[in-house]
């Protein structure tokens, strides 16, 4: 029931790839991984949600926290690969306007 999280570090930037359902239980795992990258002052932090089949407000809260922490050291956090139902959560909460969201990793890298 827990998430699979993998991190690829690449010359200062980092990709956080999450696989599974992000809810109040599993979002703590995402939070821990994000805190680690923030501590290393990575930028951009690219959060790949391509394999995330579900996300609730605790997942969104975790990403907002990550975005704010990145901002504190002048870094950026990008989101890629939103599935329709996950995109809906961002749209309902108007956070699609706050986050930089890209179709895929390539588009985020080429921004």
């Amino acid at each position, binding site marked *: *029931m827990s998430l699979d999280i993998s991190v690829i570090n690449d010359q200062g930037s980092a990709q956080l790839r999450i696989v599974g*359902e992000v*809810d*109040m*239980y599993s979002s703590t795992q995402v939070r821990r991984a994000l805190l680690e990258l923030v501590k290393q002052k990575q930028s951009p932090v690219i959060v790949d949600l391509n394999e995330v089949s*579900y996300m*609730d*407000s*605790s997942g*969104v*809260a*975790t990403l*907002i*926290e990550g975005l*704010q922490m990145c901002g504190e050291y002048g870094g950026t956090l990008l989101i890629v690969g939103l599935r*329709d*139902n996950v995109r*809906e*959560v961002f749209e*309902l*909460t*108007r*956070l699609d306007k*706050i986050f930089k969201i890209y179709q895929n990793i390539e588009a985020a890298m080429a921004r």
Partner: protein
Amino acid sequence: MINIEGMERRISFMTKTIELHLTSDPPLLSVMRAAVSKVCELADFEHMETSKIILAIDEACSNIIKHAYKGKSGQSIIITCKIKPTRLEFILEDEGEPADIEKIKSRPLHEIRPGGLGVYLITSVMDKVKYSFGVDRGNRLYMSKQRPKDKTT
């Protein structure tokens, strides 16, 4: 082999009730989501509407765990789903601390900070949302959603 043809009736014509009794343990919410997903399918909701309803019930359960039970595990949460001819109803019951109804509200959307979005999502997704907090009777959250029209005939 017993012939069950006679048992086959359109689910639309009578109320079907399904109850799920969980405890306030976050990993168990995945069981709730799987069950609610199938309930929505039986009620003729399509994929995206089903996702939103799952989200609403998940947010409501998460709030019970976080706020009513203050994170204490092993406490009772009862989710009753009623597939009625024209609408789908959910009733969530817990024995946690009753809340001040005035406090049940999300942050304003423009105030960007972590948290404070669950109640907003619940009320955005569902047609009717009604909280009742009782000292003796436990807490109760009623939610309903109109079923897709073209399928309920």
